[in-house]
């Protein structure tokens, strides 16, 4: 029974957070967007627990305690999406449902490990910001190399290939036949109208989507 309630609460908090990003967190919208039934009771319970506050225009606001909770849920959800899209190669649309399952079962420690594995990503596949965790903050302080998508490199920057998130295996083969494979250092030399990377002495043009799906270890600036 306790779990059931917390899951309901989690879903509402998640919906409020997401709507707040778009500045449209009204009770109506929250009820429409949360995957659980949002009864007056539920809202009242959240308010009484000091998680949210509803103003006269029926706008829902997260209170500090609720924000803290929501941040963790959102972080788990969006990290899970990244994991499913980037590493497992699922489509963005499919990642949503699976991520919903993940967000309830991931423990804090595991969340941070996933975050580190993915190179402390800052945005989910839908391009919404992922709240930072402790691991992100300490990583930034220690300037450890982080994994970014190849299209996030600066022009002229070199980086070591970490992994591809290719749906088709054929792309992997094509890239590795041209010399781009995990462990190899590539240099981004152009972003527009097509991406161009240099690998050994070969220049290779890539369409944006391909460049986006090559993940590289960015070496910290010396």
């Amino acid at each position, binding site marked *: 029974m306790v779990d059931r309630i917390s899951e309901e609460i989690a879903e509402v908090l998640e919906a409020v957070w997401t709507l707040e990003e778009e500045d449209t967190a009204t009770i109506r919208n929250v009820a429409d967007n949360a995957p659980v039934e949002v009864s007056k009771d539920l809202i009242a319970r959240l308010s009484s627990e000091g998680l949210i506050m509803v103003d006269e225009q029926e706008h829902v606001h997260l209170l500090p305690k609720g924000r803290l909770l929501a941040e963790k849920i959102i972080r788990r959800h969006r990290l899970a999406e990244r994991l499913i899209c980037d590493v497992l190669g699922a489509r963005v649309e499919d990642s949503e449902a699976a991520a919903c399952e993940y967000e309830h079962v991931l423990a804090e420690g595991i969340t941070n490990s996933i975050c580190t594995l993915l190179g402390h990503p800052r945005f989910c596949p839908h391009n919404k910001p992922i709240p930072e965790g402790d691991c992100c903050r300490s990583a930034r302080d220690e300037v450890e190399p982080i994994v970014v998508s190849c299209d996030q490199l600066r022009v002229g920057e070199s980086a070591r290939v970490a992994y591809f998130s290719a749906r088709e*295996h*054929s*792309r992997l*083969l*094509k*890239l*590795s*036949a*041209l*010399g781009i*494979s995990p*462990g*190899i250092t590539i240099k981004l*030399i*152009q972003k*527009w*109208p*097509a991406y*161009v990377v240099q690998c*050994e*002495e*070969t*220049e*290779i*043009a*890539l*369409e944006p*989507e*391909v460049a986006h799906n090559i993940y590289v270890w960015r070496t910290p600036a010396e």
Partner: protein
Amino acid sequence: MVSESGRSTKTVVLVGNPNVGKSVIFRLLTGNYVLVSNFPGTTVEVSRGKLQLNGASYEVIDTPGVNSLVPQSEDERVTCEILLKEKPDLIIQVADAKNLRRTLLITSQLAEFGIPMILVLNMIDEAEERGIEIDSKRIAELFSISVVETVAIYSRGRRQLLNAIQAPSCPRNPLRESGAGSRLIESLDGIGAPALLSIEWMAEGNGDLAQAIISSLSPEASSKLGNWIGSYSNGRRNPAREVAEIRSRLLDTSVASFKKKRKSRFTEEGSWSRKILLWLLAGGTLLFLWNEAGGLFNIRTPFEVVSRAVSGRLDRLLTDAGLGGGILQSVLLGKNDGGRYEYGIIPEVIHFLLLIAPVIIPLGMLISRSRTFVYELGILTRRALTGIPILIGVLLLLYEFVGYTGAQTLVALFEDILFGEYVVPLVRSILPAGFISELLAGEYGLISMGLTYAIGIVLPVVGTFFIAFSLLEDSGYLPRLSILSDRLMRIMGLNGKAVLPMVLGFGCGTMATMSTRILSSKRERLIAILLLALGIPCSAQLGVMLGIAAGFSQKATLTVIGVVASQLVLVGFISSRLIGGRPSEFIFEIPPIRRPQFKNVALKTWYRLQWYLKEAVPLFLLGTLVLFVLDALHFNGLSFLKWFERGVAPIISGLLDLPSEAAGIFLLGFLRRDYGAAGLYDLARNGLLNGQQVVVSMVVITLFVPCLASFLMIIKEQGLKRALAIAGFIVPFALLVGYVLNLVLRTFNIQFT
């Protein structure tokens, strides 16, 4: 696979990455000329040649480039099949010395075949320039093969290569050591075949290739490998992935130890001659732009001023000498249009000296002398901000050369003077009036129409286009065009790679249709062929149309280009959605800019022209003959041609408001598109078309059916059914667009003068 000894002729197969110079090595060995380009994937057909060496004879086979022997495209498959079917006695791997890792990937795959092998590190000069040093001795030791360093285009290293061919050695496979300890490698012990490769083939959907290996083995080895692959393919772990890991470990260690990188030598130069040439190029470009702007804004241009002065003086000299009005005058000076002389030899020389030469000569000298310049040019041409202005410049230069020198001056000299003044009158004067004279020199005569169009109009245009295209191709400029156009091509369901067939289509649609083979998916080949057939006018047609357009305002030309281009994008967009699927991904290697080799460009142009003369001229004659017969045969007092014109008149006159003669021209258009355009040219010159009709008829003939030759090529590439479907779509579509355009022009009363 053990090589079959005892054959009198030994088979040598050339294998290697795309654009590393296999075809140049092929030429070096056999003396046979194959078209080579600075564009990956030029060799789509397999060439064979003979080599005699100290009494031994060899058959050398050139193959399409591969990036890996695990094939990803059809031409890569072709190469694998050749290796399996031909059972070569010797494999020569040709490689770009600059890219050692990619080279050794293929070496490690080829080594598995156990066939004697040589590794040719070509373009060693480019590697040296970039400060790359390669320890070829240690590569030779690792694989136990001979490694030869060459610069094939200068024949450097040829003798060493010939020596190596006479004493080849069997490679060993270092993968077996680098994968030592792996259960996978151990379990394959004792199987001599390319076992690891067949695992990868199996895993990547090339089971037939793997089967070919298995069936060629001894019974025990075959059952061992077969069982093994069977058991592994049921397992959870992908064995191909393990093979790839072992390979990549080998490559990492060997590249790290065999390749050293020092500072590149680009920075060492900064000489005066380079600076002077750069200034000359800048000046030449300004002069060129000034001349180009002249036509648009009615400014006096250097070309016009000089041309008037020189030609005018010469004209007076000739007239004083009593040679005025003669052939000599029209050959030298062309037409005198109110003091402006055009389309003669003298104005053409001035045109070349003042427009083309000031840009091309410093550019060519810089490319051949300054490595830094070439390197920077390579960068500037692929960036949007600099690349697009450069592209516009290239197109304008192309127009000046093909559209002016080719389609105006040379056509005037060939058609008007050679055929119009000499050949046709001569034939008429020799032959007595009658059937033969009509057949050869009548209205639809084989000489007066067929040869005049083929040699007089089309040959100069295709000739100049082929020269320009070969230059562009060998310079490595075209792949940069792919980068610039990728996003546009994507709208049409293609990717940047499709730019080569499209550009080639402006030369010859038939050749372009054949070259769609470089595209990686069937759906892209279909879309590209459809678009080529629909709306890419070939140079011959384009040249003729530019000639017609020259008589009307630039608004007419722009309208035609605008309508055709928008239809191309529209049809590409819709058809790609109808066919479904996505454009295949654009992952494309860009070769460096290189100086085109004069001999190669000349030979290439010559081969292409030969091809034109052999393929196209007979079709021209056939087309004329068909027209002649249709015109000569009468039924109910009217010729068949007239009946045909009458039959389609409702469409031609009713829908498109064109004179009924245009019907015959559209019929001609099917035999050769340019042939149709040439007929249009005649109509326009005789004042039978007004501005609106010119625009409508040019749009229709551009969109109209591809010529007979390219239609035959479409059948060959896509099958009869699809070819008919393509034609069945294009004909009504072209008429529909013409109809709508005509309606719009008339409704809004848009005039072209």
